């Protein structure tokens, strides 16, 4: 094999590898969605975050508008502090309600934002006032059983 043929093949190989990397990054991965720097952070405090994980999506009206950046425990108020990284293109009013929802019956948990009617918008680092905790199945079942039992008592 002559020298130029080696060059050609190495060129083909390296180009092919780079194209494959690019395909993995753009077509397979979500490089085009919210990047780490282009956004602002808002904090939401939940009584119970359920199974919410870091990098879970933040959705408003079903559209992904950000990601969960950090989940901490506030040892003074005994609540879960969730830091949300929101895409800079989207703004939400101050009275936005954040709730932890589940995609499908067994799906991943995500944060849902329901926009309110306030004139002022949430800014970087601000705390969302109104939140709704995750539904914990055991609590729901417990409440259901409790209600059933009290119903039975009143009927007697």
């Amino acid at each position: 094999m002559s020298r130029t043929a080696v060059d050609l093949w190495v060129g083909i190989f390296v180009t092919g590898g780079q194209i494959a990397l690019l395909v993995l990054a753009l077509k397979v991965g979500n490089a085009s969605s919210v990047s780490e720097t282009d956004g602002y952070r808002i904090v939401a405090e939940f009584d119970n975050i359920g199974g919410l994980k870091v990098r879970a999506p933040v959705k408003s009206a079903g559209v992904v508008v950000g990601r969960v950046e950090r989940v901490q425990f506030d040892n003074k108020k005994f609540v879960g502090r969730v830091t949300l990284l929101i895409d800079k293109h989207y703004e939400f009013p101050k009275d936005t309600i954040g709730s932890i929802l589940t995609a499908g019956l067994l799906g991943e948990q995500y944060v849902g934002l329901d926009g309110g009617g306030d004139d002022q918008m949430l800014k970087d680092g601000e705390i969302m006032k109104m939140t709704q905790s995750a539904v914990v199945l055991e609590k729901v079942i417990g409440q259901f059983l409790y209600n059933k039992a009290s119903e039975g008592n009143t009927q007697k």
Partner: protein
Amino acid sequence: MIKAIDGGIRLIGNQVVNGVWRFGSATRFMGHVVSQTMLGFRRPRLLLDQVFFSGVLSLIIIIISGLFVGLVLGLQGYETLKRYGSAEALGTLVALALVRELGPVVSALLFASRAGSAMTAKLGLMKSNEQLSAMEMMAVDPFARVIAPMFWGGFLAMPLLAAIFSAMGIFGGYLIGVVILGVDTGAFWSQMQASVDLRYDVVNGVIKSVVFGAAVTAIALFEGYDSPPTAEGVSHAVTRTVVTSALAVLALDFVLTSFMFTGF
């Protein structure tokens, strides 16, 4: 009786001491290789030849096995996911399995048996033909002229091979899932994109393949350089290269996975 036990203990001790000894000299060997890197980069032709030797010649086997691994993943994944009514998640399954694990690991194993064994055999034969000694006689450092370019060639080729493997695998999964079994195209790609993260999944996969590339090439070169200069010695060295690098890749994969994917 006591003699047999004594002999057994001696054998084990000998093996352990030998192993540690070899590990030490392998580390010194790699240090020497890395310290002689500059010539390969000053004369890119040397490096280019090695990228051709370890990368381009492994291209066919990587492309074909990537495609078939993707096809099998598509079939098996579809069978299982269909039971839970979530065949659209096939894209996620195929992409995550390939990008995180199968791409780097399987291509490293193929790389070890295709390129690693060839490197060992080449070095072993050069040694037994006294070509390496001849180079030293001509005041050409065989480390700078032959071994370091081989190392960097393999080091550069391996991540590219793993990326090609993963891309071909995903294409194979697409062929089976979308073209033949009729999963919706949009759902296939969008579910994949929703769950594969660039930094968490893709970049970690690339880091894995870089580490595997370095490990496999280092083992192959050391075994070749260290092989006894006989026909039998070279053949044993080639066998040891494939076995050791397969074990090293799998063990390193466990270590890296436990660092990278901690469940967050």
